């Protein structure tokens, strides 16, 4: 089950452990657990460690959350504190 690619592949680009990136990570984890439990994967890319990766996904602002899959690619920038916008951005219909 775990080795199969997850239905939702999320990438979180950060630049060091800044308060914003920590907040963003905790936020997305919270939303994902709430709405996409069991069918998501989150990968964290620290641009300070791998700066060359910034160009590929056209990263400008950090933190940036990229929805790699399902396509199309969507990007959400910011600390993800606005839950509604994150869900709209990821095109997740909130479970009720």
């Amino acid at each position: 089950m775990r080795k199969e690619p997850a239905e939702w592949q999320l990438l979180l680009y950060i630049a060091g452990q800044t308060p914003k990136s920590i907040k963003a990570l905790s936020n997305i984890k919270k939303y994902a657990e709430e709405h996409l439990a069991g069918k998501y994967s989150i990968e964290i890319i620290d641009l300070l460690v791998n700066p060359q990766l910034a160009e590929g996904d056209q990263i400008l602002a950090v933190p940036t959350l990229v929805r790699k899959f399902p396509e199309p690619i969507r990007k959400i920038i910011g600390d993800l504190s606005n839950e509604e916008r994150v869900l709209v951005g990821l095109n997740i219909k909130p479970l009720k």
Partner: protein
Amino acid sequence: MNFTVQKPKASQTEADFKFPKTPTGVEGLDEITEGGFPKGRPTLICGGAGCGKTLLSMQFLIKGITEFGEPGVFMSFEEPSNDLSMNVRSLGFDLEKLKAEKKLVVDHVRVERSEIEEAGEYDLDGLFVRLGYAIDTIKAKRVVLDTLESLFSGLDNQAILRAELRRLFHWLKERGVTAVITGERGEATLTRQGLEEYVSDCVIMLDHRVIEQVSTRRLRVIKYRGSTHGTNEYPFLIDEDGISVLPITSLKLDNEVSSETVSTGVPGLDEMFEKRGIYRGSNILVSGTAGTAKTTIAAYFANEQCLKKEKTVYFAFEESPQQLVRNMKSIGIDLEKHIKSGYLEIHSSRPSLNGLELHLLTLRKMIKDFKPTTVIIDPISNLITVGSMHEVRSMLVRLIDMLKLNNITALFTSLNKQTDDLRPDLAEESVSSLVDTWITVRDMEGLGERNRGVFIIKSRGMGHSNQVREFIISNKGIQLLDVELGPNGILTGAARKSHELNKKVSKLKLQDELERKDREIARRKKVLQANIEALQGEFESAVEELTILKATEELKSKALINKSTDKAKKK
């Protein structure tokens, strides 16, 4: 003692201080900015669409790599890397090669509003990281951010954006890279988003104006902290070599002068100058109405210089090179051989093809590439059609300055309208005070014919003839005729001919008279001789008669004596 020694030293170091600058490698721009953009600081280039911002910044980068060994990063917010390569390829810049040599990084930052959702606080560290990474990989000294303002259309949170931009410029300064930021011109501000607020060390504005259907690009340095700079609007040109700016008005009047003279090539015209020619590096204006052989004089001059192995550029604004060559052949001047031998270059274009500045730049380029010692512009008055009088004058000032600086002897022709008095025309008015030597060719009309006369109005630093010399053009070329003075001044054309005829007739008459007198003398002599002979005859016959008479008398008296003796004898 120590004090006096130290003092000049201190002032010397002050005078020696130079604001650190990064040469742009853009022709002319370094002169205006007195060395280039401020080193290690951001410079803003702003201007409307299509005025050459991207090109200027690209040239700054590429020249930095190729001429000054400073690698550069080009961060494009508008055009993809491939498009950029293609665009500047036509200007002779090979981005792909530089990229492969690891001297250039082109990073296209794409900001798609539809792809991005903003949720909460963020910063632009991603951009910083990318830029920093690019700078580090090639050890870049120069950075271009082309057009940073695209960010404003891609991101909503302007407050964050502005704060981040401020941070970006600080960061660039800290990194010590010389950065160029381009920005679209706004309505009330220099840039649409007021970038000048953040980047205020050096601001350069580009402009693209169309006046009377002729476009001219201009550049102006609006501010430059810590340095003096040219303040005017300088025209610039984009051609196959990229951008070149024309900072002519920054030139000073301190060119070297030569007292060597060069011949005008027109036989007889040189003799009208005290020094048998004009000074090298000076300029001559040949003005005249239509059909007074201005071009012919210009061609003579060109021919003469080429014969002396001087490189000559001939700007023909009326005729094509082929036409000029053909026409001059008809009066015995072979320009073609000079073109073939490489001493002559004829550059023909319509004056309305370009703006004035572009003409000037073309000229400048030709001077730079061809390195002529003689330049001919035929005619200069045609340029007036493409600019106002003020503009033409300012262009000509710059042109003449440029020629003088390069010690180039120049000849301009100028067409003026036919007027009765000698009042100079527009073209002359704007040029006459600038030129050193002014020759006028004019029609001299009278007795139902038109003759050409040439005279010198002025010749700086040299005495000159005050005569109006008539000249004729035949298939052997120009011929200046000797001055023929009549009772009412100088005679030309038919008057000259009739004067000459009169002279001949009176000479003949005189001869005749003399001969008649001689004959008269001879006749008189003959008559006298005859008279003498007659008298002699008369005298001789008288003598003869008298002799006879005398003889008879003698005989008579003898007879008488004889008779008396006979009588006596008889007695």
